[in-house]
């Protein structure tokens, strides 16, 4: 039997935000009487993650993914609800818990900017009280896998974004955490660096069986790493399952690519489905999933086609569709509750 590492129940977090009106007069008025609105970042999430799982949080900006990771890291306190990670309540910030997990954020860095990363690592060794021999071994292993060993003595500010991110990952993993939270670890990186970090995470996670929660906007990260996907929008979980299930549930159509023998694209292609692109001799048509065989049969009868390719639409497109579907339904009950305060 597997063990639940993360257990979340009706977890909610809301913020009160000062609503600043435009203009000088309004700003002055704002000194005396302020309007606030309540932003409900997370609105009651239930989730269980088992040991060794690699779970992706997907969702548009402001959906509550990062807030959830921050709650699980104990960085912020929830408004209501409970959560346990490795049996600890995160926001109690017990050292016993803090020694067992790590958080990596693509947008924030923790290494000393003006010092070589090696110095920051040394500090981690002392704060986490890592045995010196073990520390050396772990550091060499991580920096070897990430191919950054030769950069250890360069000030962090002189590293490229990708190199810095690799250093951040190393710093976070030095104490061999059992749980890893990754908040957009590949943001802003070029394709090569993205791939290398994905590859590293994949191997590292598999080898150590470390429970990992990842948020990312890059579908490639998710497809490469996670078997389980949790879609969060407007602070709620809208989907929890595998990528394949997303395709089944939300991929309502397939894309048929046709290569015409005479290089001429027939004008009546629109009757079979929505024409996405026409680049003679190729054309792409979007067709409902259930009608693929029938439609394809008709096209092949009518037109001189030399090659056919049927595929699912790109994952990005499908996810965007999920988000927008959810948007429409959630738009009614309103994302924001407007209130007043003094």
């Amino acid at each position, binding site marked *: 039997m597997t063990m639940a590492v993360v257990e979340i129940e009706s977890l909610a977090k809301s913020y009160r935000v000062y609503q600043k009106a435009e203009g000088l007069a309004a700003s002055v008025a704002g000194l005396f009487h302020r309007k606030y609105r309540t932003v409900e970042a997370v609105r009651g999430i239930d989730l269980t993650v088992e040991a060794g799982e690699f779970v992706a949080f997907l969702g548009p900006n402001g959906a509550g993914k990062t807030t959830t990771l921050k709650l699980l890291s104990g960085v912020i306190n929830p408004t209501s609800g409970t959560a346990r990670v490795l049996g600890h309540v995160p926001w109690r910030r017990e050292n016993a818990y803090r*020694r067992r997990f790590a958080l990596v954020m693509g*947008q924030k860095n923790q290494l000393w900017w*003006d010092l070589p990363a090696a110095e*920051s690592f040394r500090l981690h060794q002392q*704060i986490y*009280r890592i045995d010196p021999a073990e520390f050396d071994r772990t550091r060499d292993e991580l920096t070897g896998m990430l191919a950054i060993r030769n950069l250890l003595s360069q000030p962090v500010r002189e590293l490229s974004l990708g190199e810095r991110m690799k250093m951040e990952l190393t710093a976070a993993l030095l104490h061999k955490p059992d749980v890893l939270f990754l*908040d957009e670890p590949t943001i802003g990186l070029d394709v090569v660096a993205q791939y290398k970090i994905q590859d590293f995470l994949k191997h590292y996670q598999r080898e150590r069986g470390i429970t990992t929660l990842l948020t990312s906007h890059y579908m490639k990260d998710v497809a490469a790493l996670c078997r389980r996907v949790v879609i969060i929008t407007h602070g709620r979980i809208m989907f929890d399952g595998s990528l394949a299930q997303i395709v089944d549930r939300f991929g309502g159509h397939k894309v048929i690519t046709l290569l015409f023998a005479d290089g001429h694209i027939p004008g009546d292609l629109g009757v079979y489905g929505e024409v996405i692109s026409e680049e003679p001799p190729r054309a792409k048509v979007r067709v409902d999933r259930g009608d693929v065989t029938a439609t394809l049969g008709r096209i092949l009868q009518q037109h001189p086609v030399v090659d056919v390719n049927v595929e699912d639409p790109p994952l990005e497109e499908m996810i965007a569709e999920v988000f927008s579907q959810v948007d429409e339904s959630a738009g009614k009950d309103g994302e924001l509750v407007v209130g007043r305060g003094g």
Partner: protein
Amino acid sequence: MPSGPSYLRVFLTFARNSLVRNMTFRGNFLIETFSSMSWVFMNLGFYILVFQHTPRIGDVSNWGEYSFAWGKYEFFLFLSTTLMVNSLVQALFMENASEFGEMIRTGTLDFALLKPIDTQFLISLQRIDWSSLGNLVVGIGLAVFSLHKIGWVPSVWQVLLFMLFVICGVAIMYSLMIALAATSIWLGRNQSLYNFWFYITNFSRYPMEIYRGTYGTPLRMFFTFIIPVLVVVNVPARFLVRPLVPQTPMDLLLPVFAFVATVASLVGSRWVFNRSLLSYRSASS
């Protein structure tokens, strides 16, 4: 599993890393050291001017057992105490307190909260501004020089008590500073730290004997019992200047009060600090 980190070793690593960092920007380091030292010497010049007009500050006759008259070199001892307290506070805590506000504003406080170590310790000491320690040396030099001029050799006990109450003074100043910095969690931004520092040290850097009369007495009360900055320099300085015996009741009570005030300040600031973390919102991303 090892229990907790060795705080001393972590502190020494902070100190070492800060020194490496300070040395990286050598020019900046030298200019900072130089400018804060010249500020000290200008101050010293100012007080030399003052003592051209009066032989002493404070008067024995009107105030009975409470008062003490500070002659020129006694006052320089007082001034050297101010220097030592200030330079210690600035070297250890000033940069950290303002960095704390910045961490709140930008959300990088996240990382401090993740570490298996006391958060207040981490926040308060992770950067040490070595350039501010120049004034500690100047302060010690000025103290030795003044004692020599007076022809007074303090006893070992006096020096030990002096050091103890310098540490208390530093702790009081630190408490005020970290509590003020913590308010940026609620305010979003609090840039008044340096101003505050200037206002407060302004009041603490004179002997309490000058606070008298209808305006002075309330000030003295306020800055002794509400915001106890008057004891920060006055208490250790008195230990250095005057023999331990004979003592007046006030000479005994004031240090006891200073000690209590130190403990209260530390406890109070820790409470404010922990309260503020509950409201931390972790900006951006």
